């Protein structure tokens, strides 16, 4: 019930994570709270309810002034993991940094 309420509020106030993918060259993410990892082959971002993991090459992050982030480069793989259900391996990788 609490989850449903949270989802409704997020939807109502446009706080959900929004993606816009242009080919494999650009990915725009709205409501991105944190950058967990940021290298030229892998990026991990934390949004309201998701952890977004992006693989590719020559990845660059741009302009996250308004809680948004633009990732440009050659994107090969995007993985969305719910925040509470992340794999232990991924979490470990984050805390090492």
């Amino acid at each position, binding site marked *: 019930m609490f989850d449903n309420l949270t989802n409704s509020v997020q939807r109502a106030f446009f706080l959900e994570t929004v993606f816009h993918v242009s080919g494999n060259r650009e990915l725009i993410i709205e409501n991105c709270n944190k950058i*967990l990892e*940021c*290298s*030229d082959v892998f990026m991990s971002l934390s949004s309201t309810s998701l952890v977004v993991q992006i693989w590719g090459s020559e*990845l*660059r*992050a*741009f302009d*996250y*002034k308004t809680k948004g982030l633009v990732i440009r480069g050659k994107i090969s793989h995007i993985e969305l993991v719910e925040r509470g259900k992340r794999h232990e391996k991924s979490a470990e990788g984050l805390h090492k940094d």
Partner: protein
Amino acid sequence: MKNQLRGCIKINVKGKNLYQFINAVHDRRIGIFQQYVKGNSLSAEIYRNKLKIIKSIADEFDMELKYFEYDTVSAKIIRQRRRFGLIIGALIVIGASLYFSNVVVTIEIQGNETVSSDLILTALSEIGIKEGIPFGQINYIRSENQLQTMLDDISWVGMHRTGHRLVVEITEIIPKPDMLKNRLPCNVVAAYDAEIVDFSVRDGQLMKKIGDYVFAGDMLINGVTSDSTGHVTLHHAMGSITGIYKNSADFQGSFTKERMTATGETEKRRKLKLFGLEIPLYFGRNHYEYSSSEVLERPFSVFGIQLPIVLKTTEYTELSRSETTLSADELRAELMEKIYLYEQNFLDECEILERKITEDENADTLTLTVEYRLKGDICKEKEILIK
């Protein structure tokens, strides 16, 4: 392409708290681009004005910050900020551009043929329009009307602005042709006391014949004729009656004369006329008591295009006042020259049959009295019906 105005700085941040630093930047909503992490260092680009905040965040998280600025327009300008000459020059250029784009630099007059441009410029300056006046101060409609009333020979005036020029378009009045009074009834009378030697009558009735002596004002051709029934007809009497008559003229000259003669001393004064503003290139005044001056204006031009920069040179020639005494022969020669000019100008339509010159000389003056015996037209029209 980098933002040329805001400037772009490449940063390289190293340290243990790298992701804390990244997210602190993120939380403070600072624009940061091209960011990626390699090893333990973050590479990214920021605007120049964010460098201070980035430095403080780096200090806060104990990070090592290295940076350099890309070569942008604003960076180049900032680099030149100590070169005051360039700054002053640029400011002068900007100021001059702003000033000259808002004031009348040249006044161009179009469409005038008989009315001189100088006269129009003088009239314009009287109503307050001259080089250097701001365009915003010109009331075009009022000025056009004023100029039209000031100059009689102008029928229409239009003014408009073209860049820094004020163009004054003029339409001149087409003069009314003189009325030919060929049909007004008139008589022909004698202009001089004369002896008639020839005649040719084109209209009217001849009243005299060859060999008659007439006095000035005597009727020669009558413009009023009547037939046997008593019907009166009015004519515009026309004809040519040649007579021999006398005329005289006096020419007088003084032996002593005041003349202004050049001493040979000259002085040149130059002024630089810049957009109508005259800048003197000399000091002091002209100390000549009497002088004549000659003005020469030489505009500068580049590739045949005339610039509004003129070098105005005034050459003063010193004159001295001197009293000269002429001999009788010199004065006579001078007067004879006047007689020649008189004959050329006033007696060119007559035949001079005889010329008798008598001299009257006293202490100060010499008078030549010339008595002519002339052969020429003696007709003078006299209207019958006077208004």
